[in-house]
């Protein structure tokens, strides 16, 4: 369960979204450097976000692309 302190778990989302203050970022980084279980969970979270983005991507069909182009005023 990470380090069990709970603070870094609460800080995970804002840290990933880069919305913490400079002081909070420093605090989080110091903690992560000293706490491998939390650090690993943060790395997992970062990779998970990329994984979700890639997995959710379904390319647009050529048919739709043509239909959209056909909506132009001067096609």
């Amino acid at each position, binding site marked *: 369960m990470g380090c069990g302190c709970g603070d870094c778990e609460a800080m995970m989302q804002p840290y990933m979204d880069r919305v913490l203050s400079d002081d909070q970022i420093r605090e989080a980084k110091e903690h992560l450097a000293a706490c491998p279980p939390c650090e690993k969970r943060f*790395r997992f979270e970062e*990779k998970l976000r990329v994984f979700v983005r*890639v*997995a*959710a991507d379904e390319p*647009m069909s050529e048919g739709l692309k043509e239909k959209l182009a056909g909506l*132009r005023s001067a096609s």
Partner: protein
Amino acid sequence: MSESAPSAAETRRIAEEARDRVRFEEEALQLSDQVYRVARRMVSTREEAEDLVQDTYARAFRSWQQYTPGTNLRAWLLRILTNLNIDRGRRVQRTPEQQPLEEGDYYLYNRLESTMPDENPDEERVLERLSQNAVVDALAEVPHDFRDVLVLVDIGEFSYAEAAQILDIPIGTVMSRLHRGRRILKQQLAEKAVTV
């Protein structure tokens, strides 16, 4: 000079407007892949997403003069899209008590790790417990209000401020819905995780 013959200035204005319009349409079409990517995860089926994107472009091309050049066109298009989506009444909201219980941010990792024989597995290996299909299914389980924000920020890569503008909600609401949406997503992923 007769009334019916347009002046040189008028002719120039018409030509400029036509050129601006073509430029607008070209720029909007270049963003269609990104618009579709977001639309596809906001609705359930490919057909719905295609309809929604077509309606969005039809409306955008009709009201192109309402767009302020130099502002964020991608956000402008998504604003039209989310409004159309709401107008279609596609939102069947769950009542609050039906919303899934929330677990903490470490929940998914801890659940996946607990299914693995290794003592301290690499995070890459933990991530491999998830399938791409599970992500698609889990996203569909996230209630609409949370999912819209999640899709805009985590899949569309919009900023909090842009998502707030698109959905016409305060930034604080974007942040709280995003946080809850991600937790719900991770909880759903934990339930769908492959167990080999």
